[in-house]
């Protein structure tokens, strides 16, 4: 099954309550995916030139102070700030999109990098939505956009790393309801081109594929057209970039999706029940996206 939710706020007056709006959406869809939960939150609060790195420790008592000291020693005087989030942390630093991830990977291989970008923060873990969101304080997070996922695993193991979203490039995050059938072949082709994978998860392959297409110059919509051509299986995908938010469903459209659009926001979810508490949703245009059509909401 799995549940996906997304919320893109057009009205800045709603930005302070992004987390407050998104957590109940995820909580309602815990019934579609009780084993793991994840969310990518977008907000510009890093300062000029800095990126945010969503880091995840394996132990609850991880020594972040030591990590920070080690990083400062190797960051060459670049100011770094560590924002603790329960077991995990968001590192804010101007390390550069090219150099940053490699530097962090070399610093402590036990610390996982779940995503990075100028706006995006990724929080994900095993556990139902209410529990995971409470742990990271998602309800208190402001922002202009969020995508989230409640997972019912079918293709790979239930671990923190296998949870969605999969963030495969700066500010690019993907959540998926469904299962790909030919992902192993695509994975081999991408690996042959030098793409590294964190897991054996099928959805991660789609996230890496989209990142590769975009790195080669494709826009998000074009990359998703590529997904329709290359990937076989069942999928409703929700993909967020820094300035864009997109939905695509496979040709059978067996995996649900409902869109509610008002002048204040665009909200999407696997079931309308997740949208029912949004302000003014009773006046929204509510519809189901068509199969094999790319829906994007920019700006």
């Amino acid at each position, binding site marked *: 099954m799995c549940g996906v939710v997304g919320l893109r706020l057009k009205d800045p007056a709603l930005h302070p309550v992004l987390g407050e709006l998104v957590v109940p959406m995820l909580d309602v869809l815990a019934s579609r995916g009780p084993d793991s939960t994840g969310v990518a939150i977008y907000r510009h609060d890093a300062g000029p030139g800095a990126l945010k790195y969503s880091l995840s420790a394996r132990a609850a008592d991880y020594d972040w102070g030591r990590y920070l000291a080690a990083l400062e020693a190797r960051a060459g005087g670049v100011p770094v700030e560590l924002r603790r989030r329960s077991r995990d942390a968001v590192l804010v630093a101007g390390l550069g999109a090219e150099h940053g991830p490699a530097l962090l990977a070399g610093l402590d291989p036990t610390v996982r990098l779940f995503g990075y970008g100028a706006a995006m923060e990724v929080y994900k873990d095993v556990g139902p939505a209410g529990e995971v969101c409470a742990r990271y304080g998602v309800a208190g997070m402001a922002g202009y956009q969020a995508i989230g996922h409640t997972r019912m695993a079918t293709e790979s193991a239930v671990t923190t790393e296998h949870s969605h979203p999969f963030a495969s490039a700066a500010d690019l995050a993907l959540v998926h309801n469904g299962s790909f059938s030919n992902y192993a072949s695509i994975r081999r082709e991408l690996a042959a081109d030098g793409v590294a994978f964190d897991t054996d998860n099928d959805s991660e392959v789609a996230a890496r594929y989209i990142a590769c297409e975009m790195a080669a110059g494709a826009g998000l919509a074009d990359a998703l057209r590529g997904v329709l051509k290359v990937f076989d299986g069942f999928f409703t995908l929700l993909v967020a970039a820094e300035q864009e938010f997109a939905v695509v469903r496979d040709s059978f*459209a067996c995996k649900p999706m409902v869109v509610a659009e008002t002048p204040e926001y665009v909200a999407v979810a696997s079931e*309308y029940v997740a949208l029912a508490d949004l302000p003014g*949703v009773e006046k929204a245009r509510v519809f*189901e996206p*068509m199969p094999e059509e790319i829906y994007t909401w920019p700006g």
Partner: protein
Amino acid sequence: MAGVTAVELSCAELSVREVNAALRALADGTAVRIAEPRGRHNLAVGLSNRLDIRIAGNAGYFIGGLCDGPDIAVDGFVGWSVGENLSSGLVRVRGNASECAGASARGGLIVIEGDASSRAGISLKGGTIAVAGDAGHMSGFMAQAGTILIGGNAAGSLGDSLYEAVIYVGGKIASLGADARVEELTGDDVRRVGELAGAAGFAHLSPEDVTKVASARSLYRFDALKDQRY
């Protein structure tokens, strides 16, 4: 009684099971308003009493399914499989409907005033579906008996593997499914579409201008049943 709401049930206070149990216990002729549906699934299902039910907002999956009696109106959007397996009565959706509207309905009328998504009328077994707007891909898939009227456009693979159900389309057809073909409109068809558009309240449709889609009958053989009425 007309226009008077005799009973109000709120999904903010009652579970879906409690709402359906309360509906089942009501006397024929009662008007009921279901408040704050909030996307709940399975509202007003399996009812055989003759109620006049209004669902005051957007609702979830299987609304009005398995019913044999009530008239149901939804003031908003519905999720998958509205009116699934309907036997008789009316289910009217004032907004858009998700996939599989009227799936396997055996009788009754399902009216979608907005658009219907994919597979509207899948496996229809005698019921009638009227969509004012567009219908999604694979609508009428394997429909065995009954009528589907689409006021707007039909997406791809319309009427794939159709049996004896008939589809009328007011707008454009993106593509026909396997074994579906366009047939000439007869006087009976025009009358049927006119009646149905009237019952559904579709003023935008000219019955003589619709396209009729029926089975080419090359994919199935029902010789043993050739004298049976469908």
